[in-house]
């Protein structure tokens, strides 16, 4: 028998609008073990918590139920409050009467009835709860950052500057991410390379950052503070300890390819460095195209390399690393070409995407920074930009807004005008979304100073005729159909999560949303935390965002890591499985279903029985069902507790 209390929250109007709070209080106070039932406008507020504390003291409560929002929202708040009231935190339960009741039902009578049931269920659960005490574990103060784009680099630098070791894993053979491909950045027109290079250099020389370029995370085990990762270091076929980046091999390599970095616009070689400022300043061999690796002949690079760095025998290596926290900064790609067929994207050379324009405008790009069109190298005199190409299109593209296109289109249009002053720019847009510091001003300065024509509407079709691109669009402001004979068309293509994020999310046991972006733990209050403790999220892997936001998120995740690493141990959830030694028959069925190898063998009274390693157990409870004798139970979610909830559900 335990004396418990019930506290019902109004949450302002959020709950009280649909749930009759008074009735919930009345009905629940009739429960024999409930010695006090009361309500308050905002229980989570300072006075609300004070009220709970006073009542606990006054009535001598041994546990309580909070009927309010989702436990995901405030369970921690009220469990910490319980500690301060000298009640074991695990004797506090929440009845979710907001997210799962008042917000989803309209009928007051029904919602009230349901709320009463939910509170009754929580009461019964509390009555069957036991005090639980978390165990503490040592913590590995070393972070792994996945993705060395601008967000990941920022996170790595901040963490390393704070004195912790960082492992920076990057899929591509160089760091810096997509920003290395950009020419200039909005709204200040800073040269992207100029502001990025100091950062990449700093990352490379930082004594506490271990760089792992051309590597991918294959496996992650463990839990917050004690993760163990397996990382695949892909073979570059060049011994980077020897390579000096002298580039003789590049010059002499006979195999020409179109590398991804230049978006198919500029020739590269099978052995190459992505771009002149690449960090690490090392060459690598493209496995798919290398003549030697595919046909066993050639090997010119190996013959010429003064350092004898070429190693065709090199294999992928699997490296095991121990870390305490993980930051996911996986970045973005652009939408598949086949989804924008009406614009002739992928069919006509002069229909390009924004990233290709960046390369064309870049001084290290295919035309050394002169704006030329890919098909014949002519300088385009009339150029059409199409915004929302694949974005805000829930039928054929992506329903979301890609956020940065309005800005970079204005930037690109302006850069074009700087280089081709007598050229004409047309921009098809649906809305201009320039919410950011100095953004709106940037757009209008572009329009006013550069004489570019903004046309409000979408383009239906682009096709080639007489060496020109015919653009059929609409200007909905004048109600006129527009036909433009353009020299080049630039699509502000939709941003999509980078390739392979889904697989990585599975490895990290975090969730992705319907578009493949990584899901944050709470859209407003935990925007950089993932569902798994100790895993944080920065940059475009989460949603489209610009450089400034990505950097801010990178720093924000670093601060999360600081607060985790500021402790010397982590407390593990005490909700783990426990074996009843006398009932266990030693069949070890539990061992086979445990995903964490947390079941060990133990000798007990002359027989072998199962034992749960509570450091490894994550509390899924699968073993409790596999156990034939019902000897394993899950603390916090015991058979008795769940049955008690079920019983309460059927009370009239």
């Amino acid at each position, binding site marked *: 028998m335990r004396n418990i209390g019930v506290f019902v929250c109004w949450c302002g109007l959020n709950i009280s609008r649909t749930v009759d709070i008074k009735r919930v209080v009345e009905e629940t106070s009739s429960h024999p073990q409930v010695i006090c039932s009361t309500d308050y406008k905002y229980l989570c507020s300072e006075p609300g918590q004070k009220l709970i504390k006073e009542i606990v003291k006054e009535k001598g409560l041994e546990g309580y139920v909070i009927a309010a929002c989702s436990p995901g929202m405030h369970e921690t708040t009220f469990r910490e409050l319980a500690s301060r009231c000298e009640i074991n935190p695990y004797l506090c339960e929440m009845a979710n009467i907001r997210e799962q009741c008042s917000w989803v039902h309209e009928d007051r009578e029904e919602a009230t009835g349901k709320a009463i049931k939910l509170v009754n269920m929580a009461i019964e659960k509390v009555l069957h709860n036991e005090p639980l005490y978390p165990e503490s574990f040592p913590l590995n103060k070393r972070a792994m950052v996945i993705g060395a784009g601008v967000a990941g680099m920022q996170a790595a630098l901040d963490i390393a500057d704070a004195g912790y070791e960082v492992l920076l894993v990057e899929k591509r053979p160089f760091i810096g991410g997509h920003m290395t491909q950009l020419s200039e950045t909005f709204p200040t027109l800073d040269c992207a390379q100029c502001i990025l290079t100091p950062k990449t250099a700093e990352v490379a020389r930082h004594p506490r950052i271990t760089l792992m370029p051309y590597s991918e995370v294959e496996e992650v085990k463990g839990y917050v503070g004690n993760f163990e990762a397996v990382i695949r270091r892909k073979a570059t076929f060049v011994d980077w300890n020897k390579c000096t980046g002298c580039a003789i091999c590049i010059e002499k390599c006979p195999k020409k390819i179109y590398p991804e970095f230049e978006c198919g616009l500029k020739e590269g070689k099978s052995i190459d460095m992505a771009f002149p400022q690449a960090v690490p300043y090392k060459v690598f061999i493209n496995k798919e195209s290398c003549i030697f690796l595919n046909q066993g002949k050639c090997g010119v690079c190996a013959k010429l390399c003064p350092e004898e760095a070429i190693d065709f025998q090199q294999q992928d290596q699997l490296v095991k690393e121990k870390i305490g926290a993980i930051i996911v900064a996986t970045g973005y790609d652009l939408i598949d070409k086949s989804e924008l067929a009406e614009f002739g994207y992928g069919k006509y050379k002069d229909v390009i995407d924004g990233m290709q324009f960046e390369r064309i405008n870049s001084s290290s790009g295919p035309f050394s920074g002169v704006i030329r069109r890919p098909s014949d190298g002519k300088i385009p005199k009339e150029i059409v930009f199409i915004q929302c190409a694949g974005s805000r299109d829930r039928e054929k593209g992506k329903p979301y807004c890609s956020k940065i296109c309005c800005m970079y289109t204005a930037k690109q249009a302006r850069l074009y005008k700087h280089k081709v002053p007598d050229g004409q720019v047309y921009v098809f847009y649906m809305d201009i979304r320039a919410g950011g510091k100095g953004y709106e001003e940037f757009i209008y300065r572009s329009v006013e100073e550069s004489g570019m024509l903004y046309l*409000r509407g979408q383009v239906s079709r682009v096709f080639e005729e007489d060496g020109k691109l015919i653009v059929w669009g609409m200007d909905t402001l004048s109600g006129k*159909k527009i036909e433009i004979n353009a020299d080049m068309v630039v699509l502000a293509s939709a941003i999509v999560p980078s390739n392979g994020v889904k697989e990585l999310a599975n490895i990290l046991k975090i969730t992705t949303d319907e578009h493949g972006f990584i899901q944050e733990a709470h859209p407003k209050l935990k925007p950089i935390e993932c569902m798994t403790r100790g895993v944080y999220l920065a940059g475009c892997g989460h949603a489209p965002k610009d450089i400034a936001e990505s950097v801010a998120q990178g720093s924000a995740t670093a601060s999360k890591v600081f607060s985790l690493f500021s402790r010397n141990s982590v407390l593990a959830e005490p909700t783990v499985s426990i074996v009843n030694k006398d009932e266990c028959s030693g069949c070890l069925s539990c061992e086979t279903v445990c995903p964490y190898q947390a079941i060990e063998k133990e000798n007990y009274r002359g027989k072998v029985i199962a034992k749960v390693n509570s450091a490894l157990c994550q509390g899924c409870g699968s073993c409790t069902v596999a156990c034939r004798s019902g000897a394993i139970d899950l603390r916090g979610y015991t058979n008795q507790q769940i049955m008690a909830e079920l019983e309460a559900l059927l009370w009239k």
Partner: protein
Amino acid sequence: MEISIEKINYELREAIEERSNQKIINCYQCGKCSAGCPSENLMDVPPHEIVRMLQLGLIDEALEVNSPWFCTSCFTCLSRCPRAIDIARIMEALRYYNLNDVFQPFDPNVLSDEVKTRLPQQALVSLWRKGT
């Protein structure tokens, strides 16, 4: 122009939505339909503006324009619409409401013999069908 709740919820608009099985409010006026329409140059009002008129409750005005009669039901608009609105169906619904006032059944006798012998029956059947 004054708009009001009565005007926007005009029952004819709902009837057009039901007949065409299209949700008119889904349109966000990008104009892609009009930009690709083969008969836009002959219409009083381009297709996206017809949808806008319906959104504003200007049903009587929408019934007066010639645009529905120039729609060839080629479905170019539908196939590119980011909101999957089948404008050909909306045009059909508008034609349907207009029949009594505007529609004059086509008289095949005005066709020359040469045309009559060459014209596929498909053309006549579809023309009549469009008006019923």
